[in-house]
């Protein structure tokens, strides 16, 4: 079912996978929010490389722009606005009991997911092997996503814009506080 991949491709796939995994582990063990955020940016970049290797070039680009560019900047902005990461506040990780429980739960979930992903894929839904390449040739990288987004998923797209509007309004109302009404 899967085509044969050249060694060069496989090597880089594993390389970026290992970088993503190692950065994620480094991210989750940090206590300083700024350090953690920068490790998470590293994970996002490696995942963007993996997206490009999986023939999703546009997704890779907006991964860099949106996650590494926008969302993480918002996180770092809030960290610095609140002046967190001060050495007196660094008692961040929970105690040994919590960590042990979290590790056990994680191992349990991991084994569960590993069992699930070995399930057989429904063959009747699989598109022909060169379908995605044909789409890329016909519609290019942006059109591959834009065409279904603005045709088949138009209602969902419009609802997403409402969601973003609500989120903006909510964020402004929550973060502004009571300074206006107090006057």
């Amino acid at each position, binding site marked *: 079912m*899967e085509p044969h991949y050249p060694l060069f491709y*496989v090597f880089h*796939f*594993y390389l970026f996978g290992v970088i*993503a995994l190692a950065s*994620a582990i480094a*991210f*989750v063990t940090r206590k300083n*929010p700024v350090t953690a955020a920068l490790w*998470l940016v590293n*994970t*996002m970049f490696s*995942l963007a490389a*993996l997206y490009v*290797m*999986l023939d*999703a070039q546009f*997704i890779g680009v*907006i*991964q860099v722009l*949106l*996650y590494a560019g*926008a*969302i993480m900047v918002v*996180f770092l902005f809030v960290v610095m*606005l*609140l002046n*967190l990461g001060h050495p007196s506040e660094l*008692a*961040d*990780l*929970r105690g040994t009991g919590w*960590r042990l*429980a*979290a590790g056990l*739960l*994680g191992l349990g*979930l*991991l084994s569960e*997911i590993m069992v699930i*992903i070995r399930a057989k*894929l429904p063959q009747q*839904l*699989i*598109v022909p092997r060169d379908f*995605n390449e044909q789409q890329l040739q016909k519609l290019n990288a942006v059109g*591959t*996503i834009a065409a279904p*987004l603005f045709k*088949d998923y138009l209602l969902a797209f419009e609802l*997403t814009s409402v*969601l*973003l509007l*609500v*989120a903006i309004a909510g*964020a*402004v*109302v*929550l*973060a502004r506080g009571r300074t206006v009404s107090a006057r």
Partner: protein
Amino acid sequence: MLAESLALTAALFIIGVVGVLIHRNAIIIFMCVELMLTAVNLTFVAFSRFYGTAGQVFVVFVMTVSAAEAAVGLAIIIAIFRHRQTVDLRNINLLKG
């Protein structure tokens, strides 16, 4: 590369879950949630090679939802910080019985 992608997804998702459980800093917990959402995105992209490019459209939706979630969540954190001067979850226990 589907099996490798799914295994990587599972590992990243579990790292996010463990991070949510072991951290006390609300901002780092939010970043762990972002990591979990990104891991799910990788699943969509990996499957889109076999089930058509519609999977990549869902990645766009997931990214939008995570952006909205980050905006609202961080606004809530700022609001809490204004009241309590901390983002440590031990001090945010107003709903505890």
